[in-house]
């Protein structure tokens, strides 16, 4: 496994405080021309056998963490993912030099990367988020529990200071009721969606409107089926919730476990 000499020559001339920002590892050498990466730097694919490490040479004195760097990281990876399988590396990962790229990354983990890339071939990640229309769901909760309706009547007519304990109790009951609805609504959505996916990975969600936030890995030939199913679900549920589908995007959620993504 060797890095292309032309690339090495080019980069050795760079000043000392520069290093390699790593976006990810791809299965073949992708076309990087015209892509702008973090710090507006050019994006290079360092070919190494059947793999390619996608990097930008960056200025270490000004580490990338601005809004545009975050956007560039995801834009580079999502672009790569459109032309073939890619393993996204966590944002902000910087290697010192080409030796590290070759020894720490490719030699140490080449086999792992190859098998992961094979699993990701022909598959695409999406993120699905469902959110309640808050007012609708809260009305359901009030209508569905007499204790909540009573507490609400009582706390509404009292000054805040005089009803503190009751308001905490009300909020707790409402929060639990919403949680139960959430569990059952999420289950209903997943029953329709998961059969169309290869793998899924729940993501953190918060807020009272949160129903589900989940990453989905889909075979490319099932994407339109997924879109149609979600369109139907969104139409059927639109009075109570909204459903968003983000993607296609690089498989950020399906490269973390060394054990592989398919059971």
């Amino acid at each position: 496994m060797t890095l292309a000499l032309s690339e090495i020559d080019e980069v050795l001339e760079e000043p000392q405080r520069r290093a390699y920002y790593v976006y990810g590892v791809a299965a073949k050498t992708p076309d990087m021309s015209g892509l702008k990466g973090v710090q507006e730097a050019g994006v290079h694919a360092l070919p190494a056998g059947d793999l390619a490490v996608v990097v930008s040479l960056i200025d270490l004195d000004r580490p990338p963490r601005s809004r545009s760097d975050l956007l560039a990281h995801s834009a580079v990876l999502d672009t790569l993912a459109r032309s073939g399988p890619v393993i996204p590396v966590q944002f902000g990962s910087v290697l010192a030099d080409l030796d590290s790229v070759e020894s720490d990354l490719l030699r140490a983990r080449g086999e792992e990367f190859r098998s992961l890339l094979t699993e990701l071939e022909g598959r695409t990640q999406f993120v699905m988020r469902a959110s309640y229309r808050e007012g609708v769901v809260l009305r359901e909760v009030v209508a569905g529990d007499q204790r909540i309706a009573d507490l609400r009547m009582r706390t509404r007519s009292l000054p805040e200071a005089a009803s503190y304990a009751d308001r905490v109790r009300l909020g707790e009951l409402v929060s639990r009721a919403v949680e139960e609805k959430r569990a059952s609504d999420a289950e209903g959505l997943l029953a329709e969606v998961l059969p169309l996916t290869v793998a899924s990975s729940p993501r953190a969600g918060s807020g009272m409107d949160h129903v589900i936030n989940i990453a989905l890995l889909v075979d490319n030939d099932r994407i339109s089926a997924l879109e149609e199913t979600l369109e139907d679900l969104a139409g059927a549920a639109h009075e109570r919730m909204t459903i968003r589908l983000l993607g296609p995007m690089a498989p950020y959620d399906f490269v973390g476990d060394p054990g592989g993504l398919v059971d």
Partner: protein
Amino acid sequence: MTVQTSQRRSGGGYLDRPASSGLADVIDIILDKGMVIDVYVRVSLVGIEILTIDARIVIASVDTYLRFAEATNRLDLYERGGKDLFDALGETSERTSSGKVSGAIKGVKEAITGGDEEEEEEEEEQEERRRPAKKAPAPQRTGNR
């Protein structure tokens, strides 16, 4: 009206398919995700991590219960019945949910990530390998109602 909004967004359907991801979505998508490799330097994103965790903790706190209670008590504003009900509901609930809860969290994330050039110039420190995390400023709770 909510129904029209979602129709516009997705070109005829109810499924919301944003054409490109905004900063909040991108942070959400890439934060803590991706392959972890041995690195020389890991650029610090500690501020964002802390805020995300903070947003998760808040879910089970008294503050959250009070927010739920407040939202529930606001309901009488649109308990009018009749044909207008759904319209009023849809509009108000959308404003409430995106503006108040998730909006606040997104706002905090954006504030910390910064993005204007001035802030970028100031953030010159970087986290060398295994250096303990710098403590981020506590998130401000914005009481926008």
